[in-house]
């Protein structure tokens, strides 16, 4: 069972959350300089690491806030959690 430390609510069971995917994936924006290739990469390509992974979770059955979680995809250990708009650490 994964327990996620919500920055607002404290440690909660994973069933209160839904998964929001890879948090390294940044929307390329709507400016005219944005190329099709950028949209393609944003929409379809993933690092898919085996190990620490930065991802969004939504505390949908709790405070309904989006949070950013650093979690190991092999061991399921939750390494860090922060509000979705904050950086997790010095490196992202």
């Amino acid at each position, binding site marked *: 069972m*994964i327990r996620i430390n919500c920055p607002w609510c404290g440690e909660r069971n994973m069933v209160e959350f839904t998964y929001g995917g890879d948090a390294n994936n940044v929307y390329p924006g709507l400016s005219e300089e944005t190329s099709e290739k950028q949209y393609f990469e944003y929409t379809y390509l*993933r690092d898919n690491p085996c190990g620490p992974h930065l991802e969004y979770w939504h505390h949908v059955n709790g405070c309904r806030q989006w949070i950013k979680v650093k979690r190991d995809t*092999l061991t399921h250990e939750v390494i860090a959690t922060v509000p979705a708009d904050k950086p997790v650490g010095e490196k992202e």
Partner: protein
Amino acid sequence: MSRYSALEVLKGGLTGQKHWQRAWRDPEPKQEYDAIIIGGGGHGLATAYYLAKLHGMSRIAVCEKGYLGGGNVGRNTTIVRSNYMLEDNAHFYEHGMKLWEELSQDINFNVMFSQRGIINLAHSDAQMDAFARRGNAMRLNGIDAELLTRDQVKEHLPMLDYSGKARFPVYGGLQQPRGGTARHDAVAWGYARAADMLGVDILQNCEVTGFDIHDGKVQGIQTTRGAIKSGKVGIAVAGNTSRVCALAGLNRLPIESHKLQAMVSEPLKPFIDTVCTFGAGHFYVSQSDKGGLVFGGDLDGYNSYAQRGNLPMVAHVLQCGMALMPAIGRIRLLRHWAGVMDMSMDGSPIISTTPVKGLYLNGGWCYGGFKATPASGWCFAHTVAQDRPHRLNEAFTLDRFERGYLIDEKGVGPIPALH
């Protein structure tokens, strides 16, 4: 090595059945091969077999990091079907179904293929309409499909909840009578033995640690058992696709690795003689020849390389099961486990050439890999041998996402956890 036959068993009866030899060799890696397949699961072994049998290649190696068949080929729910609606999927999986029907004879190994049929249940009028559409598409593509009424479903599946209290009443179902199950381990062992008899070297405990690529062309691989040269390397590593491809410089693929759980009950007397899928939640069931009910559900829903599951999904699957067939309430689960699925961005597989010359990719199987084993190996062997896809897999390219030619059977978009 001798062929398996009833006569061999009878002859062995006179000598205490002591004449059986090991089913495949344990060779040392050679310095060079005509082709190397990475991944000793069902798809890799099938690919090696068809390369040797149909494409006249004799020097072939299969590199497996662990033991043969220890990955998803031994972790699935053994279901075989070809009830797909989209043209590209339909022809590919139906070709696979035809290979399944001949497989035990072809590889001289009883894979216990049982065409007990598969019934997808519908729980609303809209779902019946959708099934009628899918069934019609299947029949136009030459695949068997029957739309069943509620009463017809009741004849096949009397143990479902048909009372007025059912949370999701059964409206009917779509049946593929030729679908069924096969013994998953036997598929791995059978392909391994058949490939070995054609001279394929199966190298276990041989993990790939790097690729030798010069001028955009593959020259060989580095492994934990030394360097091996080859101008053709095929990757068939399911959930580890992103990791192995990254070693070859193919970073960022249209794939996420997720885990899918399955579970099996204690052995029961015959209870259900077909494969049945719940149409209103994540639950499907069949009964193994040993008597255990084999349950499957949905992905846990988050990226994972762990070959074990979390309990919330077990509870969810069994709640669905209880809603559909309350009779299972008193039986106990024996085991549950998980496999790592290479979820592609459109839910369909990739059997393709890559930007690296001589490097080929077989992946993105989502959770449909087992039934595809023969067709996947057959098509991948063609792709590796001819350096171009067969007509059956020409749509399953790696670059289809960039070109916009997605094959999205469920129509849910680029969210791997939903396929």
